[in-house]
């Protein structure tokens, strides 16, 4: 199986982490300096997610195999 290409966190990972951060903050048992760190991490993640949501153009790639059986991704002609 090939590896994931996503360079940063996946949207799902980011969102799950955000939810976990909120949960820890809500519990109120983490010390303040840790809470502030969590908060900073959370804001960065939220920003990252927000950036992803800003994209408005859907990318469609076509999966084809070349003569050697290697996969190739080409832009789809379908408009």
């Amino acid at each position, binding site marked *: 199986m090939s590896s994931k290409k996503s360079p940063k966190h996946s949207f799902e990972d980011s969102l799950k982490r955000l939810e976990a951060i909120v949960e820890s903050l809500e519990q109120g048992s983490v010390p303040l300096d840790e*809470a502030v760190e969590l908060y900073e991490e*959370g804001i960065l993640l939220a920003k990252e997610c927000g950036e992803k949501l800003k994209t408005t153009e859907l990318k469609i790639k076509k999966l084809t195999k070349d003569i050697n059986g290697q996969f190739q991704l080409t832009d789809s002609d379908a408009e």
Partner: protein
Amino acid sequence: MPSEKQILTVSEITRQIKFSLEQSFPRIWIQGEISNFKRHTSGHIYFTLKDEGAQISATLWRSRVANLLFDPQDGMKVIARGAIAVYPPRGTYQIDVEQLQPLGVGELQLAFERLKKKLSDEGLFDEEHKKPIPEYPEHIGIITSETGAALQDIRSVLSRRFPSLEVILAPVRVQGAGAAEEIAAAMSDMNTYGDVDVIIVGRGGGSLEDLWAFNEEIVARAIYDSKIPVISAVGHEIDFSIADFVADLRAPTPSAAAEMVVRDRSELIDIIANICYTMQGNVDDRISSLRDRIQNLIASYSFNRPKDLLRESVQRIDELERSLSRIFSHVFQLTNQRYATIQHSLESLSPKKVLKRGYTIVRKDGRVIASAKVLHEGDRATVQFHDGDVKTKVEE
């Protein structure tokens, strides 16, 4: 006796019959019941079509077997399309079948039910094999026709709801000969490629025959074998395909599949905004509650106790200092008084004062003479008065 000219060899007459028959029936439809069904190891299929009064041999070449929408069996009523062919070595004629269909939708339905039961018995539809669909997929594989309505529908829904996606399309034919094989191969390719979170496989609505590829065993097994979760999206809402049963999730239409696979962008923006708001509020609350606590501490009795003690001590020191200085000045005064008294007494005891009253001190050789017996005639002595000394000589 016929003339010599008219005598034909077997081969010649067979050739003529072949020509005549094959030219007369190049494309015919025959309705009948299958019997003597045989699948040869070569892949070709041989059978007989019959009705109450007659029968005709039929062949289905391997290359066309793939086009079959169903699994032909003895006793099944079918319509065969093809051409009459004569086989000279045996002097027989047969129908060379190009396409075989069960007679009426009822037969297709039966084929459908048969496969459904078979796969169901094997456990291919069992819930325990269903893989969860990822909640936030970012790479979506689509197996459908590149030119079909399904792709357009999916595309427009995804563009509207959640465009920050990568869609990987594996273009396939979705109906007709070879469609099922292409779909199955694409399913395997998607898995080998690997970088998709979920696969949508499907096509727009159509007749049962149009949708048949999604009722084929090879497609069902490819979906079952997929390590990546599969959403089936075949036809209109009412049509159920075998693919629907074996897929991890069944969407009634391609558009619905797209709706199901991603959450709405604005909904997600709300969720994230909410998370930020909650985090911000939480941290703000904590800071302000801590600030309150600190202020309460500063104002608290215990916190201020040391200060109070200090103040008290300072005050006490002041008091002590005051009383000390009071005492000191008192002592000083007393001392002064006593000193004056002592000085007075000392003064009154001083011999000079006695001398003033008329006494004198006699000294001989610097020593005070306190007795007359010490002095003898001729001794020289000094007599001290209060205002000076006189030298004298003892006469007697």
